[in-house]
C-alpha cells in the first residue's frame, strides 16, 4: 500500500526499476518453488507409456488416471500405512503437547526456584548429544523397542526448541491471572488446566502443528527401528517403494533377474507420493499462518 501511494505521488526511475526487478525475481523464485510439485502432479495423471518414451513433461501429453486406479484397486498396504501414520501422529502430537505445555508452564513460574537449573538441563541436550548410534543401541538392545510403534513416537515427542517456544508463548500470559486463580483457591494443576491452557491456544496450535508435521513426514526413525512391513508409516513405505524400484532397475540393467515382481510404474510412484503428501497439501492453506506465527515468536529468542 505504501509503495503504491508513493508511486502515485512521486514516480521515480529507482522505484520503477525496483518494482520491475522485484516482481520478476520473486515470480521466478516462486515458480522454482512450485515447479517440482507441478511436475509430480502432472506426471501422476499422465499415461505411463508416453512418459517412458518422452519423459516427464510440464503438461500431460496423454491424460490418464490409471495410476490412481491401480493404487485404489490394491489399497491394503497403503491404508495400513495411513493408519500407522495417523496413529503415531495423533498419539505423538497429543502426548508431546501435554508434556511440552506442562514443562513450559512450570518454567514460567517465577516462584519455582529450580527453574533455571531445569532449563539448563533441557538446553544442554541441544549442545551435546551421544549421537545416533548410542540411541539406537539403547532403543533396540536395552529398551527392546525394535518393531514397536513407540520407537516412532518417543524420539520426536519432546524437543527443547518446542519447550522454549511454549515458554515464550506462556510468558505473555499476565501473572495477575494466575495470582487471582490461586487466591480463589485453585491449586497448581487447576491453574494449569483452567487458566493457562485456555489462554495458550495459539501456542498449542502452533506447536501441535510443528509436532504433527514432524510425525507425518518421519521416515528416518522407521528406517532404523521398523522392519515389519505392516508397521511401515507412509513416508517410509514411499521411500521403500522408490528405493526398491531403483534397485530393481539397476539389477535389470546389469542383466540380473530378480523374480517376477514388476517394477512400480513411474506414474504410480508419483501418484503414491501425492496420496502420501495429500493431507499436508490440503491442510496447508489453513494452517500456514500458525507456522508463520511460530517462526516469528521462535525467532525472537531461544
Amino acid at each position, binding site marked *: *500500500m*505504501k*509503495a503504491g501511494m*508513493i*508511486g502515485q505521488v512521486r514516480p521515480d526511475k*529507482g522505484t520503477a526499476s*525496483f*518494482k520491475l526487478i*522485484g516482481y520478476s*525475481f*520473486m515470480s521466478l*523464485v516462486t515458480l*522454482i*518453488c512450485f515447479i*517440482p510439485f507441478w511436475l*509430480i502432479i502432472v*506426471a501422476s495423471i499422465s499415461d505411463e507409456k508416453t*512418459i*517412458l518414451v*518422452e*519423459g*516427464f513433461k510440464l503438461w500431460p501429453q496423454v491424460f490418464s488416471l490409471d495410476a490412481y486406479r491401480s493404487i485404489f484397486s490394491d489399497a491394503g498396504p497403503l491404508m495400513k500405512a495411513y493408519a500407522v501414520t495417523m496413529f503415531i501422529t495423533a498419539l505423538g502430537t497429543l502426548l508431546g503437547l501435554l508434556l511440552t505445555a*506442562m*514443562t513450559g508452564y*512450570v518454567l514460567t513460574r517465577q*516462584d*519455582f526456584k529450580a527453574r533455571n537449573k531445569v532449563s539448563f538441563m533441557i538446553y544442554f*541436550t541441544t*549442545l*551435546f*548429544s*551421544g*549421537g*545416533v*548410534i*548410542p540411541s539406537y*543401541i*539403547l532403543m533396540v*538392545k536395552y529398551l527392546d523397542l525394535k518393531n514397536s510403534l513407540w520407537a516412532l513416537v518417543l524420539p520426536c*515427542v*519432546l524437543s527443547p526448541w518446542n519447550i522454549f517456544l511454549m515458554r515464550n508463548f506462556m510468558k505473555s500470559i499476565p501473572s495477575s491471572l494466575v495470582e487471582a486463580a490461586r487466591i480463589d483457591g485453585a*491449586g*497448581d*494443576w487447576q491453574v*494449569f488446566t483452567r487458566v493457562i491452557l485456555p489462554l495458550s491456544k495459539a501456542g498449542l496450535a502452533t506447536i501441535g502443528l510443528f509436532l504433527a508435521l514432524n510425525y*507425518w*513426514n518421519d521416515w528416518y526413525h522407521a528406517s*532404523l527401528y521398523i522392519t515389519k512391513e505392516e508397521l511401515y508409516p507412509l513416508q517410509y513405505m*514411499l*521411500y521403500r517403494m*522408490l*528405493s526398491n524400484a531403483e534397485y530393481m532397475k539397476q539389477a535389470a540393467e546389469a542383466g540380473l533377474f530378480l523374480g517376477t515382481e514388476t517394477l512400480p510404474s513411474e506414474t504410480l510412484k*508419483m501418484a503414491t507420493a501425492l496420496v502420501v*503428501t495429500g493431507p499436508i497439501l490440503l491442510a*496447508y*492453506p489453513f494452517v500456514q499462518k500458525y*507456522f*508463520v506465527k511460530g517462526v516469528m515468536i521462535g*525467532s525472537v529468542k*531461544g
Partner: protein
Amino acid sequence: MRKGTSLLSGVRKHSVLWLMLLPVLIYFIIFSYLPMCGIWLAFTRFDFRLGFFKSPFVGFDNFRYLFESGIFFRLLRNTVLYNAAFILCGNMMQVICALFLNDLGNRRFVKTSQSLIFLPYFISYVLVGLFSYALFNVDNGLINTTLRSLGLEEYNFYLEPNAWPFIIVAVQVWKGLGYGSVVYLSVMSSFDQEIYESARIDGATKWQQVRKLTLPMVKPTFMLLVMFNLGSILKGQFQLFYQLVGNNGLLFNTTDIIDTYVYRSLTVNFDIGMGSAAGVFQSVFGCALVLIVNALVRRHDKDLALF
C-alpha cells in the same frame, strides 16, 4: 545438610509442579543423557551380542583408522564446506526474498508468493528425493528430456560427483527459503517506519532505501544468524543427503558427510566403533564450537548471547 533440606522443602512446597515436570525429566535422562555414555563405544570394538559393557576396549584405534585412511578428512571437508555454503547462500537468498516481499506493494502477489515459497518446508525429504529423481534422472527426468528435445546431449547426473554439490546446496536453499525469509520479514517489520517516511520525503529511491536503511538494519540479525549457524557447522543435514544421494558410492567423494557415514556404519557396514568415533568427534567439537561462538557473541553484546 542445609542445602539438602532446602531442596526437600522446595520439592514439598511445589510438589505438583515437580510432578508435572517429572515425566519430562525422566525423558531427557533416558533419551538424551543416557546415550551420552555411549561415547564409550568409540573406544571399543562393539559386538552387538556382548553389548555395551562387555565389548572389547581398543583405545584410540577407531580414531586412528579414521584419520589414517583419509575417510575422516573427506567427511570433515564435505560437512564443513556444505554447511558453509548452506549458511551463506541460504541467508543471502532469504534476505533478498524478505526485502522484496517486504516492499512490493501488491498484497495479493506477496501473499501468494510467500505461501508458495514456504511450501517446500512442509514436505518430507522422501518427496524431495523424488523431486530430484523427476528432474535429474537420465531416462525421463525433466532436464534430460528437455536437453534431448533441444537436440543436446543427455547428462547423467547420477554418475557425476561434481554436479551434486551444486544440486544439494540448491535444494537446501530451496527447502529453507520460506522459513528463513519469514524470520527476516519479522525483523524487517519491526523497523521504524518513520525513518523510511523521512527518507522518502528527502527523495530517496527504493534502491537507496534498501541500501542505506534496510540492509544496515538487517545486518546485525544476519551476522547473528550466520554466527550461530556456524556454531553448528559440524552437524550435517542427514535427511537431505541421504534422500538425494542414498547409498550411491560413486558420489561419496563429494557427498559423504559425517552423518551419512555414521548412518551407514550402523545400517550397512555394521561398524559401530568406527561410526561412533566419527560421531564423538562431531559431538565434542560441535559443542566446543557453539561455546566459542557464544562466547564471541557474548563479548560483543551480552543480550544477544544464547546463555
